[in-house]
Each structure stands twice: as structure tokens, then as C-alpha cells.
């Protein structure tokens, strides 16, 4: 078996398009969950409106940049819709409402009633040619050593990581300021924040709007990179994987979701590549595991890994152990 090949696959994946998408989704989720303590279980809804914002705008004849703005704006509106009816209630209501709202959004986009706009289950394709026409790299394969990408993928990844960098910068600037201090105070105890004159409701709305807007960038990136949107790309599972990424990196840490995403995709691809090769080479007997089952088993391993992480390093990679211990009191 070829360990180097497994490693190459894993690194490609850790720096690739999925890692970019999850990093962006995680940075957005971190604002809501990590800093403000809001349990938004419908984060994938922000990605959906972001992706469809681009696809529909371009499909209707608008320019791509306008589509991006429409996507971001739609996610901000979605954040407000999530928040306005629920934020005055107990925090778990937000979780219930958001998970349902994201599913409603997905089912609406795939419904036949909205097919003239969303094209239903068929989705929308080929709307991001404007992005690839800006690609400075001529056709070919680029990379270092055996870690290579096609010109178009490299272009998308580069732009994607720049966007990740910018959104991290935004979150850093916001959270190091007194604004971020208020968010953390709300996460710790919103009544205490209220008793000190902070408009908790307003801050939560801002957190949902900003977190949602950054999340929409993940959807926009995904839509533009694949040149396609489809309702069933936006399953609730995505939100929970984004949580895994945030928790892995350490919630409430600026770079946590980015490192979490890179590591998550590295481990996921590495275990898959290793397992696949091991089954093919006969190191793992076929009564135990066949090559077809590897894809499913790696998710089992991800779950196991998260359980171990929670048990032995609940603060994530970047979090502070001291803080986590206080939380457990």
C-alpha cells in the first residue's frame, strides 16, 4: 500500500474546496455559537440562501458580483428572521426553530411550486462563468510535489482562502473590541449583561446577521466553485459537521474554525485513503470491511474521534483548559 499517496490525498483535501467551505461556515458559526452562545442549528440555511442568491441572480441576467451581494443580504435577512421571533424566548427555542427553518428553506427550493425560479430538484448550473473568465492561470495542472490542482480549482481555492482570511480578520477585529466582550458576556449570562445596560436582544440579532453573512460566503463559494446549486446539497447534516469543525478547533477562538476545518478534512481523507488501500491490499479481511463500506466507516471514525475529543480535550485544539473546567463547575 502507498502511504505517500494517502498523505497526498489528505493534504489536497485539507487545503481543498471542502476545507474552504467548512472554514467559512465555521467562522460564521463561531460568531454565533462560540462567542455569543447561540445554538443555531440551521446554519446550512445561510449557505443555501447564499448559493441560491448567486445562482438565481445570474440566471435572471444579473452580474455575478450582484449575485454575491444578493446572497449575503439574503443571509442577513435570514438571520433576522431566525432571531426576531425566538431570541426573547429560552435559548433552546432558537435551536428548534432554526433547524426547522433550514429544512423548510430546502424543501421550498426543491418544491415544484418554486420551480420556475429555483428549478426544483434539478438545481441551477453554469452561472459562474464570469468568475472563471477572470482566472489568471492558463489551462493545466499546478501545485507542489504531487499535491496538484487544475487551473480552475486552484483559482477557486486561492480566492476561497483569501475570503477565509478576510472573514477571520473581520471576526478578529470585532471580537477583540468591546463589542466582542459584550457577546462573550451574553454567552456567559445574558441577564448579567442586561443588568449592566446591554441591549442583549440587539447584540444577538447582530451576531446572527454577521454569522449568517459569513456562512453565506461558504454557500456562495460552493455554488461558484461547482457552478451548480441543488437543494439537496444543503442537508441538516452539514450544520452538524460545521459544529464539529468549530468544536474541534475550539469555540470562541478566532482561528479555531479554520484550523478545525483543515484538520477535519485531513483526518477524514487520510482515514478513508488508508482504509481503502488496506482493504484492497487485503490487510483488513473482507468479512470485517469491504472497500465499498469504507466511506461509511470513516464517518463512524469521525464520530468516535469527536467523542474522544469531548472526553479528553473538551476545549478543542485552541481553547483554554482553564475556561472549560470553570464551565463544568
Amino acid at each position: 500500500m502507498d502511504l505517500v499517496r494517502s498523505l497526498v490525498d489528505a493534504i489536497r483535501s485539507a487545503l481543498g474546496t471542502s476545507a474552504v467551505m467548512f472554514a467559512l461556515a465555521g467562522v460564521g458559526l463561531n460568531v454565533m455559537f462560540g462567542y455569543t452562545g447561540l445554538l443555531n442549528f440551521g446554519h446550512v440555511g445561510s449557505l443555501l440562501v447564499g448559493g441560491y442568491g448567486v445562482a438565481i441572480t445570474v440566471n435572471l441576467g444579473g452580474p455575478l458580483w450582484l449575485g454575491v451581494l444578493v446572497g449575503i443580504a439574503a443571509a442577513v435577512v435570514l438571520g433576522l428572521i431566525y432571531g426576531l421571533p425566538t431570541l426573547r424566548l429560552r435559548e433552546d427555542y432558537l435551536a428548534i426553530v432554526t433547524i426547522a427553518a433550514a429544512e423548510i428553506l430546502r424543501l421550498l427550493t426543491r418544491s415544484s411550486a418554486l420551480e420556475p425560479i429555483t428549478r426544483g430538484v434539478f438545481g441551477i448550473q453554469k452561472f459562474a462563468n464570469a468568475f472563471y473568465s477572470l482566472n489568471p492561470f492558463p489551462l493545466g495542472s499546478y501545485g507542489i510535489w504531487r499535491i496538484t490542482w487544475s487551473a480552475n480549482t486552484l483559482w477557486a481555492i486561492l480566492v476561497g482562502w483569501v475570503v477565509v482570511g478576510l472573514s477571520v480578520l473581520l471576526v478578529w477585529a470585532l471580537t477583540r473590541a468591546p463589542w466582542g466582550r459584550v457577546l462573550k458576556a451574553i454567552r456567559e449570562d445574558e441577564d448579567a449583561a442586561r443588568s449592566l445596560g446591554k441591549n442583549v436582544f440587539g447584540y444577538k440579532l447582530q451576531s446572527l446577521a454577521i454569522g449568517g453573512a459569513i456562512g453565506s460566503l461558504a454557500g456562495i463559494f460552493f455554488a461558484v466553485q461547482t457552478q451548480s446549486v441543488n437543494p439537496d446539497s444543503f442537508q441538516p447534516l452539514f450544520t452538524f459537521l460545521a459544529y464539529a469543525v468549530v468544536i474541534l478547533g475550539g469555540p470562541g477562538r478566532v482561528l479555531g474554525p479554520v484550523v478545525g476545518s483543515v484538520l477535519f478534512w485531513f483526518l477524514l481523507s487520510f482515514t478513508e485513503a488508508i482504509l481503502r488501500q488496506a482493504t484492497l491490499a487485503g490487510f483488513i479481511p473482507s468479512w470485517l470491511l469491504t472497500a465499498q463500506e469504507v466511506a461509511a466507516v470513516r464517518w463512524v471514525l469521525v464520530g468516535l474521534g469527536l467523542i474522544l475529543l469531548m472526553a479528553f480535550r473538551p476545549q478543542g485544539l485552541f481553547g483554554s483548559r482553564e475556561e472549560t473546567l470553570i464551565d463544568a463547575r
Partner: protein
Amino acid sequence: MPADVLTALPRIPGIPKPDPILVADGVHRHFGGLVAVDIDHLEIQRGTITGLIGPNGAGKTTLFNLLTGFDTPDAGAWSFSGKNLAGMSAYRVARLGMVRTFQLTKALMRLSVIDNMKLGATGQTGERALGALTPWRWQQQEKEIEARAEALLERFTLGRMRDDLAGTLSGGQRKLLELARALMVEPTLIMLDEPTAGVAPALTESLLVHIKTLRDEGLSVVFIEHDMDVIMDISDWIVVMAEGKVIAEGRPADIAANPMVIDAYLGRWHGEAATPEVEQAIVEHPPGEGER
């Protein structure tokens, strides 16, 4: 001393004060069939320490919640420094200068002590999302806030813990921190819900000195307390609640001698010989059952 004017007042529940900072009128709150608070009229004198006492379930904390905007009464009007507070949200009440603390201390555990303090400051430009992105507008302000916070921490003997997480403080230190943090809002009236509960005796002593000093500096203080020694020691005026109503008001000496207060705390049969008739009466009318 502002408290002296109280000496001449008649000891009638709901008696008007010469210079009230807080006035409540007909404030009523019920939870289902249970009447939690039913105040006809209550005034709090400016610049004094007012103790609010009463047996468990008398509605003291509920009254705090209602007056500070953390809960909404079913009926009634109340005002602070002449401003009507009805329908005003808690954070705006706090910004007006009426700040409360909580029975179960709400230290922001995973924030440092100094961050807890700085959070109390109001009007920080950097607390607005757009303001946060223009650091040159808030960094100077932040320095001033930090200086004020450090001075308060020194005063409350928490200076050494400046950079510790609030969650690592002892229960008593958290109470001190909560009080100091409330002062960062620059209140004119501070409402303390059991400030000495769970605090070691030595620390209680210093807490009480702090509260008296605040009064002497012109702050008005209302506090809920169960420890009678504490109440009698620092109150200028005492308001007694039972079953949601104000049943007595007066100077500490009056309250200690008031038979209605003793009844409310101990039941109406206290001090009587436990004859079979009295025992029967206690069974039929257990302490706390509403008659008065």
C-alpha cells in the same frame, strides 16, 4: 444626613418620603393563582440604605425583577427619579442609573475580572458593531474605562485578581466583583439581592462597610437580606414584605419591636405555651398562611 428626615415619619406602610428616588404604585404580579407581589404604594428615600425583608416567598425578589424591568407586572405604575419605567426594558432601566445584582451571583465566569468590570461601563463606542471596526475611536475610551475599573478593583480588594477568570474567585469575591461591576454603570440607585448570602463573616463585614460608604457618597441602596444582624446594622429604613404586600415600614428599632413582623416571620402562635388548643390552631393555620 438624608436618613435623619426619616426619623420624623409615621411608621405606616406606604408612607410618602420627602425625597423619593423610587416610587411604586399599585404594582401587582401574579403567577397563575398565586399573588406574588401586590404593592399599594411604596417610596424609597434618596441617599439612604433601605432594607427589604420578609419571609421566603414574600415577593421581595419578584419586586426587584418588576422594578428593574426583568419581569413585567400585570398592573401598576412605577418611576425612578421621576421617570416612568413602565414597559421599559431592563437594559434601559440600568442605563438610567438603577442597577441591580442577583441573588445567585452572576459573575461572567469565563471572562477575566477586569473584563467583567469593563463590561459595566456604558457609552463605549467600541460596543457598537461599526464602532468596533474603528479602533481609534474606542481605544482612548477603553483606557479611561480600564483606569476606573482598576481603581474600583483596588477599593474592593480585588486588585490582585485583575487578570484571573471570574470563575476562579470564591463566592464572596464574586459578590464583591458583582457589586464593583454594578458601580461601573455609575448608578444612582443600586438594588442588591442578598449581597451577603454565602459570604464568609469577615468578608461580610467588609461588604457592609462598602455599602455604607456608597451611601455616604450619595448613592441610594435597596437591599434584600435575611440576616437580621446585617439588616439592623446598616439599614436607615426597613420595609417588610409578606405575601406580596408591604406590611410594615420603619427605622430598624421600630421593626425589631413590631409584633406583625415577628408574626410574619415566626407564625402568629410564637411565644405561646404549647397547649393542645394552640397546637390544634397551628395545625389549622400553619405559619405563613395569609391572614395579615
